[in-house]
């Protein structure tokens, strides 16, 4: 067997020490009528070489972003990952360790958590970050649950339909089991409808979820919305793109009380949707309600500075059903990748990366301006890294298929989530895309023959 140590002699000796005649005897505690009386119907073992061949065969039946030029976004992005991230994060001392229950032999992980938390606070303008959650959507859910925990009478949660659809779906799932209501306000021209928000706010609202940029890539001035929410006594939850914070104002500065984000952009491979990095930070006043692990600074018995898991009385292993959340793990390895990535970029590199995303998105926008077939769906908005393009020929599915034959993942048809945007494509342009690739995309968009009638004739 692949990973076992004990020889037949070892096993005999061990059984003798135990006082058992056979391994079978050790399972005496499992009643016969609970036993499986046949072998598992799972194929015979594969050697490493055979497994590699099998996996290559499966991998070859996929076309990934190293083969197709990726303009797909929608919550996961094809950014460049420096080699140092992989080299360091694949060190076994990080990779094969666990939650730092014994701080004396986990200072590496704990210090990384502390550095990660500091970076998240710097980017978001919050006072406290936890050591990470599962992903952006579940971090968003946790922020909403935190808001609901503050008051028994505030049971409404307000979002805009410009929040990521899968985040809204995740919220809807959780809230359907609770005495709480999800109110989804339609965006107006891809932005918050201030009047609608004002009308929806009252003393039954627990929180308002504001995303920046929103799902359509639109950057908004959210301070007025945050102010209104605060005036009504609601918690302001910000869902941000963490990479954009090299350029865009920190949500703490425009009024967020809790900030959550998907951290995949920070050096985490796409790997078909996970594992990713759920970022969550909050103001100091909310820290006792925060879910997840938190690393804090202290000293050891000789006065040396060191790090420990702290504020653990919030957590399930101590409080059981009184805990702030059921979450046990953090995404340590992904938080490590993000910390290494941000260390490599530094403040200037992060700003340049965010700026290149902005410039390249603007370049795409400009390249299509005045085009007969394509228009920017929300032209009055400023866009960062993503933009919604409308196909006047109403043929986005065909465009995507056609683009694939030209080696491009052209973007995301929005009809699956927004029937009124069924003629639209959400296109992401990261810093990794070149001018030549963008030109090629524009060429494909313009030149895909259309078969159907225009939707907006």
């Amino acid at each position, binding site marked *: 067997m692949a990973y076992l140590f*004990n020889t037949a002699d070892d096993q005999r000796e061990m059984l003798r020490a135990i006082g058992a005649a056979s391994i079978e005897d050790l399972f005496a505690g499992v009643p016969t009528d609970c036993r499986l009386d046949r072998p598992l119907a799972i194929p015979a073992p594969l050697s490493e070489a055979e497994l590699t061949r099998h996996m290559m065969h499966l991998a070859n039946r996929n076309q*990934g972003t190293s083969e197709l030029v990726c303009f797909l976004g929608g919550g996961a992005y094809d950014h460049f990952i420096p080699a140092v991230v992989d080299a360091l994060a694949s060190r076994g001392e*990080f990779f094969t360790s666990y939650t730092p229950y014994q701080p*004396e032999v986990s200072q590496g992980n704990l210090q990384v958590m*502390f550095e990660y938390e500091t970076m998240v606070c710097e980017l978001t303008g919050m006072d406290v970050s936890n050591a990470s959650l599962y992903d952006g959507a579940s971090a968003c859910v946790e922020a909403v649950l935190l808001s609901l925990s503050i008051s028994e009478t505030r049971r409404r949660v307000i979002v805009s339909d410009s929040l990521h659809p899968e985040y809204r779906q995740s919220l809807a799932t959780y809230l359907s089991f609770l005495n709480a209501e999800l109110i989804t306000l339609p965006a107006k021209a891809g932005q918050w409808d201030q009047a609608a928000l004002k009308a929806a706010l009252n003393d039954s609202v627990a929180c308002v979820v504001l995303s920046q940029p929103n799902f359509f890539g639109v950057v908004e001035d959210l301070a007025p919305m945050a102010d209104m929410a605060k005036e009504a006594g609601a918690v302001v939850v910000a869902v941000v793109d963490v990479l954009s914070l090299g350029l865009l104002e920190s949500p703490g500065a425009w009024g967020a009380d809790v900030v959550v984000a998907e951290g995949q952009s920070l050096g985490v491979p796409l790997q078909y949707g996970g*594992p990713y990095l759920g970022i969550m930070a909050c103001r100091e006043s909310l820290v006792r309600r925060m879910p997840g692990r938190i690393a804090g600074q202290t000293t050891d018995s000789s006065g040396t500075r060191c790090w420990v898991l702290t504020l653990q009385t919030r957590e399930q292993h101590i409080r059981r059903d009184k805990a702030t959340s059921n979450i046990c793990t953090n995404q340590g390895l992904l938080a490590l990748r993000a910390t290494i990535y941000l260390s490599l970029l530094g403040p200037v590199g992060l700003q340049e990366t965010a700026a290149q995303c902005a410039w390249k998105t603007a370049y795409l926008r400009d390249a299509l301006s005045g085009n007969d077939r394509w228009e920017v769906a929300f032209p009055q908005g400023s866009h960062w890294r993503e933009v919604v393009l409308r196909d006047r020929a109403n043929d986005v599915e065909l465009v995507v298929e056609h683009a694939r034959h030209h080696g491009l993942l052209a973007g995301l048809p929005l009809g699956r989530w927004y029937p009124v945007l069924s003629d639209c494509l959400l296109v992401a342009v990261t810093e990794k895309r070149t001018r030549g690739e963008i030109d090629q995309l524009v060429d494909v968009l313009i030149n895909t023959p259309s078969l159907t009638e225009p939707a907006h004739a």
Partner: protein
Amino acid sequence: MRNVQSTQLIFELSKPGRRAHRLPPADVPTPEVSSLYPSASLRTRLPALPEVAEGDVVRHFTNLSTLNMSVDTHFYPLGSCTMKYNPKRNERLAGLAGVADLHPLQSESTIQGMLELLYRLQGYLAEISGLPAVSLQPAAGAHGELTALMTAVAYFKHKGESDRRVVLVPDSSHGTNPASAKVIGLETVTVRSCPDGSVDVEDLKSKVNSRTAVFMITNPSTLGLFEKQIKQIAALVHGVGGLIYLDGANMNAILGIARPGDFGADMMHYNPHKTFSGPHGGGGPGAGPICVRDFLEPYLPVPRVEKSGERYILNADHPHSIGRVRSFFGNVGVLVRAYCYICSLGGSGLRAASEQAVLNANYLRSRISPLLPVPHAGPCMHEFVASAAALKKQRGLTAMDLAKRLLDFGFHAPTVYFPLTVPEAVMIEPTETESKETMDAFVRAIELILEEDQELVHAAPHSTAISRPDEVSAARKPVVRWTPTPT
């Protein structure tokens, strides 16, 4: 030989103007960003990220890594966490182009190989559990528990039994069980254990009724014992119309030997990072796929991987589904490693792994019980819980003292003070990927510690990067981020 300079905080290594990663020059026009965005949305001060050279980053994190114990470097018998060897081949295969570089929103036609892998994995997990319907979506064990409880509530609601709001948990259960119930507003009631570690069936009888939704049981239990009365317990709970949830944290003991679906469970989660060798990553990522009986299938999260003719599809069209519990499909990177592990071992190898895990645990138990009493009769399954209560009484040494001193001998500490039902608990899980020699050395270390001077053990560890930290001050006056010293 410790490099103290490089393991300062990365912020303290920072020097204005130093750079590591550089981008290629922009090949498109670069207008002032203030012309692209309203000024209120632009940052006025750059975040205080470190300014360091690439070599700084490499040396800093490499040196930090050496301050960790890990499975690659040390015996890590952390009970309940199944710290087995994490095969290197799985890392390489999970990193293949065509696997690691797939965008989660690509069209089905471009990811047929991935969907096939996930579909096959669903089948293997169903076969191992004896429960036919699988959702790979949950992101961790606790997330799987929560998702399964949602599934159960949706099922009861559909049956018109919405007043089933009570979740029963044994007093020895993982803290996540009651915490998961609370997230969706269910009540929890604790069921007592008998002195031998089994569920107190009389206590359970007095607590099951028409409001019972789910009994969450860990079997093998957190004491490393198979619950012999499991069928009777299941009959009791099923008799009042409730469901049995199996916390699959301890599946490493029973692969191919006993299947939860065959001994009465209606739902369960796996911890692939434990049972199927996913690396623990310093706390995560994990994954928490769940398996359920066919009558619960309609309520599972969407989307699900299905096969339609020769094609694999993602199907979100399940009208009774609870919906989605996270973004995208799941922690696929972890699931791919689990798939590789299952393929490497095959059906026969999975069973052999469980047999060897149980053999190792019993060997270690037989060697340790003369030193530290194990309150529950053997044989055990994949782990056992010893007690340092007598040691504390006789010599004033606690489970924590022992744990800390073991670090000096180059062993990660066992889990201590869990489960809560055993005083001064020392929970030991060697896993199957450890040799007799390693376990003998571990036992020898405990023997030596028990002969040592009490003060020496009290003050342990002595050879680690730091001595015992002041956790009380850390919680009382939390310092949870670095701030520059004012100059």
